[in-house]
């Protein structure tokens, strides 16, 4: 089964608004990563947060991690039409299988 599950499955906002996507996972993790996928293309890594970190920033991206709730969130501030894409979380579980496990993704649409 998928380790990470994103919520919501789809999100539609206006340019300039903030977008928040959530990811929940089942077992203790070593690290959690967020990726973006533009339509019909490969995934691009956005940000990685380790289990001992609570928050991380990269440009307009802010990722939080709550290990007690087994959840992470990705916030995109001041969104642009170019942010329209699918966003995936991927986690590596401690003591588990030796691979990243991807969620099913959140499809974000930013309307101009």
């Amino acid at each position, binding site marked *: 089964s*998928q380790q990470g599950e994103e919520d919501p499955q789809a999100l539609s906002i206006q340019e300039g608004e903030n977008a928040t996507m959530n990811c929940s996972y089942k077992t203790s993790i*070593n*690290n959690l*990563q967020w*990726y973006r996928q533009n339509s*019909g*293309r*490969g*995934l*691009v*890594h956005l940000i*990685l947060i*380790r289990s001992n970190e609570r928050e991380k920033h990269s440009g307009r991206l802010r990722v939080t991690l709550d290990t007690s709730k087994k959840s992470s969130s990705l916030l995109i501030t001041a969104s642009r039409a170019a942010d329209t894409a699918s966003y*995936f979380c*991927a986690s*590596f579980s401690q003591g588990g299988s*030796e*691979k*990243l*496990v*991807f*969620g*099913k*993704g959140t499809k974000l649409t930013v309307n101009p």
Partner: protein
Amino acid sequence: DVKVTQSSRYLVKRTGEKVFLECVQDMDHENMFWYRQDPGLGLRLIYFSYDVKMKEKGDIPEGYSVSREKKERFSLILESASTNQTSMYLCASTLRPPWQGYEQFFGPGTRLTVL
């Protein structure tokens, strides 16, 4: 910049054909992965390799095999293509294993249709 290239963007094959999907990375990465992506199912790991000549089954290896004769090249083989293997196939590579917390670099994907 790391570059991961895949041999085809689009491919159409017939049921029963043997299909080769090739992936090449140019950054001397040890670790390479093949995923398939289907609507509503996300990315699922087919096979991975942490070293040349080494391969490990992922979550859905049935109907697939892989070859890694050289460090930079990781090939996915569909032994006898079936319609349920119609999908987007994504190759990825990473410098270190996932537990060391390194990002994966993805190729552009191959959209395979099996008729």
